[in-house]
């Protein structure tokens, strides 16, 4: 719909600006808090304009002792852990669900639909529901405090499998047939035809899954006791409670700010493909 009425234009801009302001305000506060020193942050009213301690806070948070008076890992280490976990979860989920969707759509084997529904009902069992048995299994496998323990239990994805199944079903049968005539075997077809045709969907899913992985809280909290293995999202919460003193907002907010960067980077970098993947229907 293309309309050109000045009043409507102004109103819609006001609404949009208000919306952005509401979303952006907490982020602004976070940023401002990260630029003041610890003392200023405990005084009321909280500042609304940036202060002059950004670099100091930045360095102390990222490489330095972090929160003074505690024994938590430096934030770069947490970022690294989070990144490893999020990447392993998202890439793992994509790889596994691509392969299982491929099997379900393109191969005939006994109980094919049975397997499909089996995968599908696991949607009803998110980590929180199966957390005790999963913990038990991971502990028995000796995967506590490891990247494997952080990612493997979260790596199977019914949602992604289902989504890729739908994507594959939109690829016309003739594509498979002409690939067969061209002499492409199943794996060749998978790599040369199926993957490129699902490219945008893979990208869209990667963005969603990366953020899902990055934001994991409960699971890392349970299985990482070693401070070297903590992830950034769970640490922010711990920082609030850790020290027996009033929270050091400048450091905590700087950490929060740093925690936002990778997901934002992923979204921005994949934006074009992401939008295509969610809207494109043309095969």
């Amino acid at each position: 719909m293309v309309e050109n009425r000045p009043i409507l234009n102004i109103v819609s801009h006001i609404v949009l600006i208000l919306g952005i302001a509401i979303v952006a305000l907490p982020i602004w506060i976070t940023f401002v808090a990260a630029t003041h020193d610890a003392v200023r942050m405990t005084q009321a009213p909280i500042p609304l304009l940036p202060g002059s301690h950004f670099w100091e806070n930045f360095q102390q948070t990222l490489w330095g002792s972090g929160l003074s008076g505690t024994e938590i890992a430096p934030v770069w280490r947490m970022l690294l852990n989070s990144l490893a976990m999020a990447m392993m979860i998202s890439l793992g989920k994509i790889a596994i669900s691509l392969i299982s969707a491929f099997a379900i759509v393109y191969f005939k084997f006994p109980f094919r639909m049975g397997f499909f529904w089996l995968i599908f009902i696991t949607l009803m069992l998110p980590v929180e529901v199966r957390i005790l048995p999963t913990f038990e299994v991971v502990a028995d496998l000796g995967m506590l405090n490891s990247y494997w323990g952080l990612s493997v239990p979260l790596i199977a994805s019914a949602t992604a499998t289902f989504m890729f199944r739908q994507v594959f079903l939109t690829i016309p049968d003739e594509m498979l047939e002409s690939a067969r005539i061209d002499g492409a075997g199943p794996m060749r077809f998978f790599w040369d035809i199926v993957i490129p045709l699902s490219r945008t969907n893979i990208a869209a899913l990667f963005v969603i899954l990366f953020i899902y992985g990055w934001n994991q809280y409960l699971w890392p909290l349970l299985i990482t006791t070693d401070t070297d293995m903590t992830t950034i999202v769970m640490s922010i919460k711990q920082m609030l409670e850790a020290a027996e003193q009033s929270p050091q907002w400048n450091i905590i907010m700087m950490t929060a700010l740093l925690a936002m960067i990778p997901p934002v980077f992923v979204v921005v970098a994949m934006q074009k493909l992401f939008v295509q993947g969610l809207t494109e229907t043309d095969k």
Partner: protein
Amino acid sequence: MASITLKDLVKSYGDTEVLHHIDGAINDGEFVVIVGPSGCGKSTLLRMIAGLETVTSGDIQIGDRVVNNLEPANRDIAMVFQNYALYPHMSVRENMGYGLKIRGNSKADINRRVEEAAAILEIGPYLDRKPRQLSGGQRQRVAMGRAIVRDPQVFLFDEPLSNLDAKLRVQMRLEIRKLQQRLGVTSIYVTHDQVEAMTLGDRLMVLNGGYVEQFGTPIELYDRPATLFVAGFIGSPSMNFLPAEVASGMVTLANGARLAGGGTASGKVTLGLRPEHLIADETGPIEINVQLCEQLGAITLLHGHLSGTDVECVASMPGHVSAAPGTLMRFAIAPEHLHMFDTQSGKRVDA
């Protein structure tokens, strides 16, 4: 190059048999068109030859190999699909070269062959475009190009022109024919369009309900249709069918009119008369009560009834003819243009 032999070929889906004991031999270099109404099993037959459908029973032989259990890629065939089935993410060049790449041909060889095919089909300028950047006709050419670069023994076409507009269809039809003659590759072409079938095929296999009605040259099919179905299917406008009785060299129509012909046949038959074989003749035996004149320019179609009956009858006359509804016109027909069919079985009754 290769001949193709179909032996007692049957295809069933579950309990329903869709192709019944098809036999046929296609010669080396021949262009055979499989034609028939929608749902008669044309695509199924073609796809069985391609190896995309399994054979329920019987044999398919390409050259001297029985190929029943060979993968499509090993049958040395190429197929052009109705919707072209080009890979959307590959350029025209990659689309055409993909099969060769899988076979392990060298880059230089692939390039040479692709360029050759592109030159034949005049798609050279589009080699680096994606299929979606091409028009329907250009995609069609690319699909053909993909088939010819592989230099196969057999081309298979499944209604390759049905997505094109009428004019382009006629043009591409001729091009396909020329290309096939130039390359001399045995080809099987599926269509439901009888005009397309007549113009393209060296021989036509007319399928109906999973049975082969007749397999012969276009002229054979036109001159001596083996069944009522073929008689009605081939030729436009289609043949008139009149109930009649034959006895000792005379055919009696439903209104009592008698015409010479019919040879030694006798009894009740369905008489087939092609509209274009009816010749206006004031003393002719066939009287038609004209209801409608359809002026087509070069010819005029007169639609009406056999006078005194409600048997519909169409006559085709050269030039411009006009007749008011209700006009009675008389026609004659040469004895050799009478086709007689058994009313029950639909089989041709030979004089």
